């Protein structure tokens, strides 16, 4: 009985995929350039990556210290991995009819720069889901433990952010020039300019006050003269 249900479920999913025009691509993309220590993790095997090497769904690419990699996908989306980063091709569906893809990449560590091609693209991190179409942005993880958060700088177009945990309400659409951070267990927030590097603790940050210079004045006036 369970077997029959499984077969029916797989058939329904297959039909849905076929009817949508999207299908799992044999090759999702390839490594354009590799610099220094870059690895491909396929299944349980970790091997040195080579330029022009093909990537398939569930492959992960990892960069070492002072290493970088550029990945081009069939839909012309580009992922640039900076050092000490790891990204996994979680899902890649390609529609040869429309020449578009639906893709999900899992940023496990570090930072990547993304130029979205003909794709409905999602980047999943430990804390956030970023959904993008026709845009370019950087996205990176920072902090540890309860301080963990995902931040992103948008260069063009729009990227929609929400917490990876569906129980956390709230989403935000970041536009060109915005820096958006999504903390663990919190809603995404736009970080005001001038506070691009806010301290990680407390877990979510207060905007830096411009009254701080006034604070200097008030500080030295305690019990004494002021300006």
């Amino acid at each position, binding site marked *: 009985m369970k077997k029959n249900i499984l077969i029916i479920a797989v058939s329904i999913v297959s039909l849905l995929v076929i009817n949508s025009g999207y299908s799992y691509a044999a090759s999702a993309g390839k490594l*354009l350039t590799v610099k220094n220590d870059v690895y491909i993790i396929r299944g349980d095997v970790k091997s040195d990556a080579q*330029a022009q090497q093909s990537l398939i769904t569930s492959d992960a690419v990892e960069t070492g210290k002072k290493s*970088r990699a550029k990945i081009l996908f069939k839909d*012309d989306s580009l992922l*640039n991995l*900076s050092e*000490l980063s790891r990204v996994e091709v979680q899902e890649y569906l390609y529609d040869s009819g429309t020449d578009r893809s639906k893709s999900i990449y899992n940023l496990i560590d*570090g*930072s*990547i720069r993304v*130029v*979205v091609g003909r794709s409905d693209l999602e980047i999943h991190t430990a804390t956030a889901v970023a959904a993008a179409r026709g*845009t*370019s942005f*950087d996205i*990176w993880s920072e*902090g*540890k*433990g*309860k*301080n963990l958060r995902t931040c992103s700088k948008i*260069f*063009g*177009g729009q990227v929609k952010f929400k917490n990876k945990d569906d129980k956390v309400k*709230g989403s935000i659409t970041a536009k*060109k*020039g*915005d*820096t958006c951070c999504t*903390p663990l*267990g919190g809603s995404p927030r*736009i970080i*005001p*300019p*001038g*506070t*691009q*590097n806010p301290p990680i*603790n*407390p*877990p*979510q940050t*207060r*905007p830096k*006050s*411009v*009254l*701080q*210079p*006034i604070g*200097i*004045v*008030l500080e*030295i*006036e305690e*019990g*004494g*003269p*002021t*300006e």
Partner: protein
Amino acid sequence: MKDHVMSKLFLLFLIVLTSFSLATDLYAADSAGQYYAQGVDSANKGDYEKAISLLQRALELSPDDSDAINFELGRLYYITDDCGMADKHLSAFNSASDDENLKHYADGLMDTCGEISSDKSQHIDILTGLQYDTNVLVEPTNPIDKAGQKSDAKAVIYLTAGTEVFDVDGISLTADYSLYQSLHYRLNDYNMQHHQIKPVINFDLSDSFMPSVGYSYEFTRLEYDNYSSVHNVFANVVVPGSEGRSTEFNYEWRNKRYSDSDLYPANTERDGYRQTFGARYNIFTEEAAYGLFVKTAWDKARKNYWSNHMYGGGADLSYRIEDNLNLSVTTMLENRRFDENFPTASHTREDNLFGLSAELTYMLNDMFTLTFANALTVNNSNLDDFTYKRNLTSLFISMGVL
């Protein structure tokens, strides 16, 4: 007859000339096409140098039909991190092409060319603006002449820069520097210059306990005179709670050295140190951040009538009205009791200081933020000479340079 023959010869010459010209064009077009095809093929094989060379040749041969060539060249220069050349060819493509999707994509390539700055830990911020102060002259070392309390406008520049020096195994060292300079419109003696150097060591060793310790050196000048220098040691602990809550505890020890000047001839009487203990509770929600804080401080000065004990508390709120509009409000109350009578006073001084400030911040774009702020300070003292009220209205523009 002779004219007829000449006409035929001329017509034949024209036909030959046109055919030759057409053939040359066709040959050139074929060559450009071939170079383009070979260039794309080389690019697909990962031989980017050869691909660029072939596409450049194609561009030379067919400069008037160059959209596709410029686009491919732009992409290749992007891949090889030659951002100047990538910009040149992608800009040329964008100028000539009608394909909005590809133009958008080319914009993305131009915006993101080059290495990712994985080092997000450096910053330079500049804040500048104007302030109007209703009570510049507050001189507690001498009895205040109420009539002498003056208002003045001033320009302010505040520069902050910082970097993460290292981050190894959960221990990081950050170093910050700030410079504050005010320039008064009338009361130039009160032009203040304040420098602060602040290294901090952060320990990120545990999910439930995040300590940091630091030191800062502060140096202040008023116009041409030294005013004070302060060595400051502090420790901070953050204890994260659940659902966006956290508690902070902090300790601070300040060693203060003042300088006498014409403006403040008895300033060194206040040399000494201060210890402060504080606690803060934070609540973060989707739209707002709330904080409640308490603190107590002991100030020990060379002359005991400057020594005092302070305790106080307050609350602050930061509310995001729109994505680019933020309102912050802070209120605080402090009680300060001094250890001994002032020489001219018959009883011991006790102050109650109330502060209320609000600031409205509007993000203009990715670099600039505009802020309107107002800070009210009211000090009620049992010695009338030390009672004052001060209102500071500010208009700032801040810029995140890095």
